[in-house]
């Protein structure tokens, strides 16, 4: 690998603009704005919204897995905790939605921090099992604490968030699925922005150091324990918020939605997209949410697709979609070079 730059086909300034994160942000915002106008039926709008939720979950996991290097299989637990906590606060205690959302996030962060205390002392495999155990325990509690959660019967008729009234503007009513999508997508965008800023700051450098080699990271003054707890707390907080929104979007809550397979699903999205890139899991989430919709006839076997995708990616393209994109662009550049050389 030489460090000299290959001759540019596209002028450097234009390339920089195309690749700049501001451009990407604008593109994403535009796409989000346009989607509910393209999909006007309930079914596809719901898919888009679930997609946005999965994006948030995936980038949250990537923060812990791809950057801090911790294999956390407990995301389903935080997702479920957030969903049930906020719903119960709203339906049983009459707490306003936005306050309940904050409460749910706080609870999930706390749970994440507790799980992280295991991560501090355990190496990869142990942590995977501990987090899995955590997910199982949470699921069983949700399933069996019938007086609180109504168990397998579930909680029904969960209202969407209350309409937002800003002075001078018409009320934003969330019974409208388009508006609900904007809310969830805005949340996903915000989460991405937060994580992106963190990752490019010295905190991100510390997490990457922890992922690469904890011993030498400590020799540089990095307190591995504290930063692992931080990564877990942020990641689980995002999952908890996503859970709260999930309840509003789907309207019903059953424990089975938060079975441990959900953790594996999110893992598949991260790995297929590209671990440790933050952008990759976005594509992975979108792909894996939308792909089963196009493979009609396979219908209910979403999980089979995820399993195959995950396995294939690990074997042939461990860097996921991002690695594939880089290879493809490198190939294209070489082809273009050969063209111009003639």
């Amino acid at each position, binding site marked *: 690998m030489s460090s000299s730059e290959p001759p540019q086909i596209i002028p450097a300034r234009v390339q920089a603009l195309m690749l700049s994160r501001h451009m990407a942000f604008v593109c994403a915002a535009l796409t989000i704005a346009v989607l509910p106008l393209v999909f006007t039926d309930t079914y596809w709008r719901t898919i888009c919204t679930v997609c946005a939720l999965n994006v948030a979950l995936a980038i949250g996991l990537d923060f812990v897995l791809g950057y801090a290097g911790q294999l956390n299989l407990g995301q389903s637990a935080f997702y479920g905790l957030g969903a049930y906590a906020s719903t119960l606060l709203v339906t049983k205690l009459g707490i306003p939605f936005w306050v309940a959302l904050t409460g749910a996030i706080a609870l999930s962060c706390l749970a994440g921090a507790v799980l992280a205390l295991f991560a501090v002392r355990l190496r990869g495999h142990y942590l995977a099992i501990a987090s899995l155990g955590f997910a199982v325990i949470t699921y069983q509690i949700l399933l069996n604490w019938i007086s609180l959660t109504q168990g397998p019967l579930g909680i029904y008729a969960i209202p969407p968030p209350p309409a937002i009234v800003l002075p001078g503007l018409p009320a934003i009513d969330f019974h409208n699925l388009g508006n609900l999508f904007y809310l969830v997508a805005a949340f996903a965008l915000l989460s991405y922005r937060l994580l992106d800023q963190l990752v490019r*700051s010295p905190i991100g450098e510390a997490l990457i150091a922890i992922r690469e080699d904890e011993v*030498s990271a*400590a020799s*540089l003054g*990095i307190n591995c324990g504290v930063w692992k707890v931080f990564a877990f707390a942020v990641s689980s907080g995002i999952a908890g918020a996503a859970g709260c929104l999930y309840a509003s979007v789907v309207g019903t809550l059953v424990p089975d939605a938060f079975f441990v397979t959900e953790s594996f699903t999110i893992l598949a999205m991260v790995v297929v997209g590209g671990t440790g890139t933050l952008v990759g899991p976005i594509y992975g989430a979108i792909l894996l949410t939308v792909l089963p919709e196009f493979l009609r006839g396979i219908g209910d076997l979403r999980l089979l697709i995820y399993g195959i995708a995950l396995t294939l990616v690990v074997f042939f393209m461990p860097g996921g979609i991002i690695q594939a994109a880089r290879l493809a662009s490198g190939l294209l550049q070489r082809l273009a070079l050969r063209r111009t050389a003639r």
Partner: protein
Amino acid sequence: MTAARPIDSMPSRRNIGILLRAQGLHKRFGGVQAVHDISFDIPEGAVFAIIGPNGAGKSTLLNLLSGIYRPDAGSIVLNGVDLTKLSAHHRVRHGIARTFQKIRLFRHISAIDNVVAGFHTRHDIPIWQYIIHGPAWRRDRERCRDEARRLLAFMGLERRAHLLAGSLSYGEQRMLEIARALATAPCLLMVDEPAAGLNAAEAEMLLDRVDVLRRNGTTLCLVEHNMDLVMKVADQILVIDYGQFLFKGAPTEVQRHPGVNAAYLGGQLHEPSAHCR
């Protein structure tokens, strides 16, 4: 958080104070007494070497000093601060940095990113700017990258800055580890077998760098097998064997000490240097 200290702008000093005092260090692993009652002082500004046959406990000693292991007994005092109970990452803030016998770089990121990671204890950014990058964040990033480039150039790696650390040659990786450790602006830099695997040219360069560091006021503690290097560069040498203190003194004294010759050198100190590839 201290401001960045450029490498070559410090005047040379002659210091006679004691920078690090280790007393009565003991460390046992299961049935093996790896370190038994070792005490020594590292004078400020000196190049202090620790030598001994394989398995003598040199790396264990380094691990005790840097905080990877806690001593079963004994104390470690740096600049008047008792480090004995502090964890490894805490000690860095007091000015200890180290490299490792088996190279421990962050292999999947670039050389310059490795060095930048070393600035962890020296950032000067208000907390909110970690989330919303403002002017202080930008200034800090510029400063870090500038100084990282200077450190890389100091260790001869300026043209390798953007390569993945894992793809560098063995010698370059050793230099990078030192550059990264230097990023913490240590007053005591401990290097574990820095010349292992270096060819003649690289070892020469290492010698030269050690000299510049010493002239700029960094104290160095060297664990090394390469006797040529040690004799050329060390001010004081501590010889240990089977985890126990054998001798401490200037290079010429060490050469003449019969016990050292017997235990370690086999009486043949004037052997032409045998560099590892």
